[in-house]
């Protein structure tokens, strides 16, 4: 494949990723959000595969595979399992109205494009819109965490922003060293594990969502 | 500049002041009596009083400490020592430096301080009240006095009274400026306060409403009281002497020998007499001020002194 085609593909994938991100933000049902994250991970895996074919970098294949298996399948499944475990209300409870969140999201996207626009000469060094897309997805994931009540939606947001980082890593740097990628993913898994444990423990001790606790203040 | 005054002369002047002190009081009393169409006691009455007291025994409050007997001694000593600093018959600095106007004020303040402290020794309300009032007036008087001294000293460049007098010279009346008039006015305002007379204090009564100085003497008796009275007479004449030295050192003629001494003494007596007369006039033509009006009264003096200073310095 020629680098132009690769670049266009990556750009399209980036656009799709942004779309999934918007879906996550707009999701009214926790399950929808989880599905969107899974889709996002899938797209990233595809991006990895594309880059792998383009650059012939075998590491990228591995990474794509790991991403697919862990982030597109395992973690979503875990999240679904947790949702079933603590039979919480399935609706996403926003802290601020969806419209406001969307407006903020727009601001974030605009800011990140403006930012990478200012880079100028670096743009060709960086493949297409990968950087602004990566920045926006990362920030938007955090935005979701900040504007959604339940712990689960926060975990979803966290994974989303991790996806953003992964995408940037792949697209911008043609993949980081394999060992590092693996370590990163392992850490993500561990973090998810610990968070799940915490969520469940709180649910078991006091019947409340851990993200709603606000006794420590001042 | 006139010659220096030998130590003997200084001491002579001091003794002269001590001896003349009661006389001034006597004169003032006599004048007051005449102004009030009374016969009045003779001008030597104060001497009789003092001598009589010296012959009497002492009744001392049983609560007093040993310090109480020392008070009259120290007060008298301090006041008389202040007398040594006033040039009486001749201008010019003493042959051996002794003290200046500040020292004089300091010694008088020492006497006042000891009197006030002593008044508290016996306990009881009268002494305390007298001391409290005396020590209320004194701090208000002292800055004004200081400014008056300043206003003349700035011109002369010294605070030594003999030198100040010499600096003014014999032709003082021609040398008077506005500053001197104002300063003298301030001094006139202060005089009753310094000498404990109407309108600030009333030397004749022990009524707790009026008394300042007398209240402090209430517990003293016999020779002690005599010392205190002698001290207050001396204090009065010393104050008058200070005024005359500051403002019209006439008669401080530079004539050596006995003649000069007599001339000087005569001139001094004349000046004191004048000042005494106006004290008597003031005292018999005014009523005593309410105690808390006194600060305002002294305020007048303060303003005069301030203007005097301003005129001198600006």
């Amino acid at each position: 494949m020629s680098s132009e085609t690769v670049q266009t593909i990556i750009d399209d994938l980036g656009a799709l990723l942004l779309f999934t991100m918007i879906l996550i933000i707009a999701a009214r049902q926790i399950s929808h959000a989880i599905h969107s994250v899974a889709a996002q991970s899938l797209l990233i895996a595809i991006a990895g595969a594309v880059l792998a074919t383009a650059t012939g970098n075998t590491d990228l294949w591995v990474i794509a595979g790991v991403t697919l298996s862990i982030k597109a399948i395992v973690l979503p499944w875990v999240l679904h399992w947790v949702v079933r475990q603590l039979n919480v209300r399935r609706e996403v409870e926003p802290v601020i109205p969806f419209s406001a969140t969307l407006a903020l999201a727009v601001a974030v996207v605009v800011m990140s494009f403006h930012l990478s626009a200012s880079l100028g000469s670096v743009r060709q060094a960086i493949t297409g819109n990968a950087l602004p897309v990566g920045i926006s997805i990362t920030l938007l994931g955090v935005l979701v965490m900040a504007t959604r009540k339940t712990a689960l939606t926060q975990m979803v947001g966290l994974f989303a922003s991790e996806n953003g980082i992964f995408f940037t890593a792949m697209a911008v740097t043609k993949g980081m060293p394999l060992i590092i990628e693996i370590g990163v993913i392992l850490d993500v898994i561990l973090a998810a594990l610990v968070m799940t444990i915490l969520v469940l423990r709180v649910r078991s001790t006091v019947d409340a969502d851990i993200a709603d606790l606000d006794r420590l203040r001042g | 500049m006139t010659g220096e005054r030998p130590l003997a002369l200084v001491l002579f002047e001091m003794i002269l002041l001590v001896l003349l002190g009661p006389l001034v009081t006597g004169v003032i009393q006599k004048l007051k009596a005449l102004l009030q169409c009374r016969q009045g006691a003779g001008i030597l009455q104060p001497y009789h009083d003092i001598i009589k007291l010296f012959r009497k025994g002492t009744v001392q409050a049983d609560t007093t400490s040993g310090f109480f007997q020392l008070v009259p001694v120290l007060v008298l000593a301090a006041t008389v020592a202040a007398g040594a600093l006033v040039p009486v018959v001749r201008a010019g600095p003493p042959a051996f430096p002794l003290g200046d106007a500040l020292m004089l004020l300091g010694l008088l303040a020492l006497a006042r301080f000891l009197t006030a402290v002593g008044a508290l020794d016996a306990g009881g309300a009268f002494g305390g009240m007298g001391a409290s009032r005396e020590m209320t007036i004194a701090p208000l008087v002292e800055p004004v006095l200081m400014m008056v001294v300043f206003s003349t000293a700035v011109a002369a460049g010294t605070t030594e009274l003999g030198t100040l007098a010499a600096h003014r010279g014999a032709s003082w009346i021609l040398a008077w400026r506005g500053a001197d008039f104002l300063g003298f006015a301030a001094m006139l305002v202060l005089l009753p306060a310094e000498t404990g007379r109407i309108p600030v204090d009333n030397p004749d009564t022990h009524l707790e409403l009026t008394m300042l100085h007398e209240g402090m003497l209430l517990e003293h008796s016999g020779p002690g009281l005599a010392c205190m009275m002698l001290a207050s007479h001396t204090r009065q004449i010393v104050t008058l002497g200070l005024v005359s030295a500051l403002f019209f050192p006439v008669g401080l003629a530079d004539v050596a020998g006995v003649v000069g001494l007599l001339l000087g003494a005569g001139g001094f007596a004349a000046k004191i007499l004048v000042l005494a007369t106006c004290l008597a006039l003031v005292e018999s033509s005014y009523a005593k001020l309410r105690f808390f009006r006194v600060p305002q009264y002294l305020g007048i003096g303060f303003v005069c002194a301030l203007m005097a200073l301003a005129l001198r310095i600006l």
Partner: protein
Amino acid sequence: MINFAANEELLLTGALLMAACYGAGALSSLLAWWSGRLALAVGHLAALAGAMAGLGVSVGILLGDPGRTLTQPLPVLFPFARLSLSVDGLSAYFLLVISLVAVAAAMYGPAYLRAHSPDAGPARQAAQVVALNVFLGCMALVCCAGDALTFMLSWEGMTLASYVLVVSDDRDGENARAGLLYMVMAHGGMALLLVAFLALTERAGAFDFAALRAAAVGLDGATRTTLFFLALGGFATKAGVVPLHVWLPRAHPAAPSHVSALMSGVMLKVAIYGILRFAFDLLAPAADPLPSSWGWTVLAVGTASAVLGVLYALQQHDLKRLLAFHSVENIGIILIGAGLAMILWRREAAGGVLAVVALTAALLHTVNHAAFKGLLFLGAGSVLCRTHVRNMEELGGLARRMPWTAGLFLLGAVAISALPPLNGFVSEWLTFQALLGGASRFHGPAGLGIALSAAMLALTGGLAAACFAKAFGVTFFGRPRTPHAERATEAPPSMVAGMVWLGAVCVALGVAPGYAMRLLDAPTVALLHGPKASVVVTARGPLVLSTGLTASGTDATAISMTLVAALLLALAAIAWVLRRGFRRAPRRAAPTWTCGMTPTVRFDYTATAFAKPLRLVFAALYHLRREVIRETAGTPYVVRRIHYTGEVMDLAEMQIYHRVERSISGLSQAIGARSTGRIHGYIAFLLGALFVALLLFGVG
């Protein structure tokens, strides 16, 4: 003496000996494991030895060649600064002041601590011993420091040690609060000092004073003045200059009395040392006079402190707080002299005589105040440890029970009221002369201002006399008002000895000040590079103090304290003879006259009553706090008893400090209340921070 002074090795050994003694004293606190009393005794003995050594060294240096500076490098502790000691005339003079009082305090201390707090455990005693020695050592070190770092470190050590002493005395809340206020103010001052010093060191690239001087030469006027005012702010906080004085009347009384004596008598002077060091030495221009704003500011704040300090002292009924406020007053008097010296230095015609007189006045008052304020605090201390009462309303009649203390306290009272023939008068006389000279130098408003501050000084003296007539009379005279006073007995001899030492200093400096002038040569020369103090002030021999108000020195004013004292003595003798009366009439004792009623304690004039007239006269400057509790019997018309308490609050405290404190704490409360511990807020802040940072810095 002279060849001793010439021998630098000897002096340095003496200095080392002093340091060693203080160090040993600090270590001797370990003896407290065995016995607290032993630790107290040994620690104070060591302090005494150190003070003696300091006395010797300082006198040695002062009597030596005035221009000389002893320098001694210290071991390298910090890679970025060369530490060293450098002792010139000024340092030696203040070392002398420190040691003078330290001797008395060390004599006085052990007995006082045992008598005042008999229940103190060994731990507290150990702490007090350590702190006292460290305190003395650090004060000495501050004055001898040859570089900024040593100065600042020992300065902080001084603060810390005194803080420990303040809070160690009693562990009730009051001391802790006093200590807190003290530390906070000190810290604020230190911050200003830090900036002033570091701004210099950064220019100089080194910490030692020589380099700082060199760096200061190149400063432009604005920077120079800014630095000076920073330093002045820092030192003024320590010196208790109005309105930075609020900590002083709380902290000083809280400490043990001999420490109060040290804090009031000496520690404040260390701040004065700092001001002089900065103004005339570190920041002084090469050849020009000091910027006129410096001197005038110092003169103004000095005058303000003098008047306000004594006015507030007048309304205190707590003996030690009263004394503390008087420290504010006396620092003001010192600053008047110092400010005048700054104004006049290099500004007058030939000779620069007047600046020397002004500085001499300031320095002399420094040692004088150290002596009589120390004496007074020790006196108050012996009253306190015998009666355990500080409120003079509850005292009275002590003169018959503790005659030594009473007599020495009276001595101190006369001295501090600037009455002849004692030392207070001498320094104030010199100040007046300097002011007079200044007034005749500067015509126009400047001169008038100087004359006015002279008038204020006179007012201060009068008020001080009034205040001490009250303090002494109410405390020691009349009838004992409470059983505490009734039971009082004379203080133990070691304490009296300490007081006698300082009393002797007061008398000596009052009666024969001329002989002390030689000690002032070194500091005046070191600072003003002008004529010696003794040449100017004792031109006519040591018995006469004279000031040539004109440059030529003609028609100078001259007084002789010695002669006046002799005259007083002679007259007193004569009067004593008279007093005994012409015929030996018997002396009868009778009850005090109270219009025929049987006199009781309630007839005695109280301190409140004594000071009331002046309170009304100066009502504008006082902020009163009154509370009246009336116990009524059923119906409000029958009043059983009325309990009244009134207190005069410090205007600065009410108007400035309380407001600031309230606003800051209110603001903090408001902010603290804002924090809802919701995690979404946390995340939002994180995101927002990144967002803003990217916007601010992201685009190069």
